[in-house]
């Protein structure tokens, strides 16, 4: 697969940077670790050409003008800071963090009848920080659907820090069938199923929706899964507000998704789901442009389903498709 898509890129930083962040963070504390974020940011900014260009292109769309150098550095810095925060969140809990939360009522209402709900997130702010929900609403059983294989080094590190995390994660690397059946079981138990709905895998069924002025591909799997499970769908993101502050945002996108039988009407219904999601994402990004952590050409259509073998439903909930 070409290096232009997100699956083709190795983890930003790799083992060494993660080790460094962990070592310094946990031994020296968060304040010294944060001081290192400057040099770390600069290092990645200089070393990671494709990410740098993707960031510049994204910021031009989000800001409506070419980004200045300090804005581009701020984007990289936000990514480094949220990565560091993940380590602290998992190793030491919420100590030293401030979480604001909006839309909790909508979330609890969606879960009220006990048949579960789907929380569609994005690589916006910190997906991990959504776990802070547990402190505010301990009755909510959160299950994260993540692809551990996509960032094995980071996941290995995070799991080493928080072994109980494993039970909360439905590992997409188990293959689409096991993951989807596990999601069905979790929904039946009334859990809040959280997955990321922004990145499209090669060969995955997707539709385009406008985002920041141009059409971008979005996967259909989250919406099809919600329709099959008959559960409400919410958008959930933890916006990064700087210096350990996060704003958890939940909003209802649909109390239930009905997909018509006729293929054309079905596509139109799915397109409407995707468009609604994209519009809400755009609103979050207009509020806080530096929250966007898709450092690849997001607007480029991935290789078509015809060109790649694999389960077209892969993606949000799967990982046995082709990877870079």
């Amino acid at each position, binding site marked *: 697969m070409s290096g232009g898509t997100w699956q083709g890129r190795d983890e930003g930083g790799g083992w060494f940077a993660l080790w460094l962040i962990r070592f310094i963070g946990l031994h020296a504390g968060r304040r010294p670790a944060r001081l290192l974020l400057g040099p770390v940011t600069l290092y990645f900014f200089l070393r990671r050409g494709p990410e740098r260009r993707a960031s510049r292109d994204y910021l031009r769309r989000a800001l409506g003008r070419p980004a200045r150098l300090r804005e581009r550095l701020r984007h990289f810095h936000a990514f480094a800071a949220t990565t560091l925060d993940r380590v602290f969140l998992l190793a030491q809990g919420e100590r030293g963090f401030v979480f604001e939360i909006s839309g909790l009522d909508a979330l609890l209402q969606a879960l009220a009848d006990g048949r579960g709900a789907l929380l569609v997130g994005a690589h916006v702010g910190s997906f991990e920080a959504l776990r802070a929900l547990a402190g505010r609403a301990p009755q909510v059983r959160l299950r994260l659907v993540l692809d551990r294989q996509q960032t094995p080094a980071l996941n290995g590190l995070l799991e080493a820090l928080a072994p109980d995390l494993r039970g909360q994660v439905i590992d997409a690397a188990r293959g689409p069938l096991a*993951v989807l059946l596990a999601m069905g079981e979790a929904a039946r138990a009334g859990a809040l199923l959280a997955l990321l709905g922004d990145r499209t895998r090669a060969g995955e069924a997707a539709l385009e929706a406008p985002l920041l002025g141009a059409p971008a591909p979005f996967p259909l799997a989250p919406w099809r899964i919600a329709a099959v499970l008959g559960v409400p769908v919410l958008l959930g993101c933890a916006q990064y507000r700087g210096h350990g502050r996060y704003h958890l945002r939940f909003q209802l996108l649909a109390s239930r998704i009905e997909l018509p039988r006729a293929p054309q009407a079905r596509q139109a219904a799915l397109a409407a789901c995707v468009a609604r999601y994209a519009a809400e994402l755009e609103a979050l990004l207009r509020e806080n442009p530096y929250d966007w952590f898709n450092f690849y050409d997001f607007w480029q259509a991935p290789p078509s389903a015809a060109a790649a073998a694999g389960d077209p439903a*892969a993606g949000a909930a799967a990982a046995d498709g082709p990877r870079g």
Partner: protein
Amino acid sequence: MSTQTPAEHDLATLIVDSLHLEQLSAAQIDPEAPLFGGELGLDSIDALEIALAVSRHYGIHLRADHPDNRRIFGSLRALAQHIARERAAQAA
């Protein structure tokens, strides 16, 4: 194509109905052909829908952590046999 047993036909009908496969009749599903990723054009989200329908219709829970899932969901025949075994186990 090999012929469907009555149990397989019953399951095929459930699959066609729950997935709204209007271009296909239950009798047309080859019991030995791959259910997913093959000519039927079904994927893993369809598998979830089938699992939910099986649970409602037969009272059988198709577990996510079953080690033989790949085989169980491999064909109409394999799935029907699994359901029959599970129902027998439940009745016992």
